[in-house]
């Protein structure tokens, strides 16, 4: 791997790792979601630091270029995390749907004539 791309890969993965960690520390990212990012940045970091390991894996995967190996793993990670998000979003929309239905039912129970709810919306 040319030294320049190695340097960039090392720097970027290191920055990513630190940034994700910082987000968790500031409670802007849940640990659940940070794990994937931390593991991915750690893997890219290790792969770009250690040429020998990268060479072994590259021949194992059957790629001709070191960089392809990095891209390959990066892409796999992105696909995995996107799928994970889709699953989470599906669960969240189901929950929002149920909550909205529940809210409509509760409002009617408390205030069947709609005296205080007129014109006041949540969105």
């Amino acid at each position, binding site marked *: 791997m040319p030294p320049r791309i190695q340097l960039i890969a090392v720097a970027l993965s290191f920055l990513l790792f630190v940034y994700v960690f910082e987000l968790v520390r500031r409670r802007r990212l849940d640990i659940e979601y940070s794990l994937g990012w931390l593991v991915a940045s750690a893997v890219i970091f290790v792969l770009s630091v250690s040429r020998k390991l990268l060479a072994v894996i590259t021949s194992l995967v059957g790629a001709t270029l070191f960089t392809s190996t990095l891209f390959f793993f990066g892409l796999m990670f992105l696909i995995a995390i996107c799928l994970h998000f889709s699953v989470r979003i599906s669960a969240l929309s189901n929950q929002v*749907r149920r909550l*909205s*239905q529940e*809210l*409509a039912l509760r409002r*009617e129970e408390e205030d*069947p004539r*709609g005296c205080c709810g007129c014109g006041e919306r949540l*969105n």
Partner: protein
Amino acid sequence: MVASLLAVVPAYNEEESLGALLRDLRAKVPNAELLVVDDGSVDATAAVARAHGARVLSHPHNLGYGVAVQTGLLYALRRGFDTVVHVDGDGQHDPADVPRLLAALDAGADVAVGSRFLVRGYPSPLLRRLGSRMFAALASLIVGQRITDPTSGFRAMRGPVLSLYASESYPPDYPDADLLILTHRHGFRICEVAVEMQPRRGGEAKLHRGLRPIYYVIKMVLSILVILLRRAPERSAVRHAA
């Protein structure tokens, strides 16, 4: 609760047609309690409904037709109604047909569907008719009885099927072939009843514009496939659970 029949009217910005519909329902189906599910309307839908003596459930935002209908079912289950009829808020469905849907339930059906195609053709655009026919044929094949109008939202249902429709299994947007197949898979009896429907006012529904039909066909095929691939429930267990 004396009244055991609940008429659920899903309505989204229907302040203009809702009043007449509710008056008509009251006259044609006097024993029904009226419930309007206001699906996040920004007009006076809820106020009009209350003025006409209907109970109103208001979604905090627009959740779609299927969800509105389902909220009505949740209400029915909690208040102990055993029969529910859905009548669209836009005036497409004629309340005068409701007694015939109920008669089909009395005759032993779990779900009675008002079909606009049983008697004579209903004017609709070619592409839509084609898709409609295709899914009607598919549903007929799987359900094992003639289904002519799978997209009809004009339905009456009674008993344990209410719990099925109130569950997560219920498809959240428009009722279609997948719902009928789901109903059949759970061992419920479906019966179609010929009704007249008024063409929609105000042009085509949003559903049929642009690439939507293609998306819809693919989604429906997928939905049916998933329903068929899920393990079939114990029919007797579901039917007698509630």
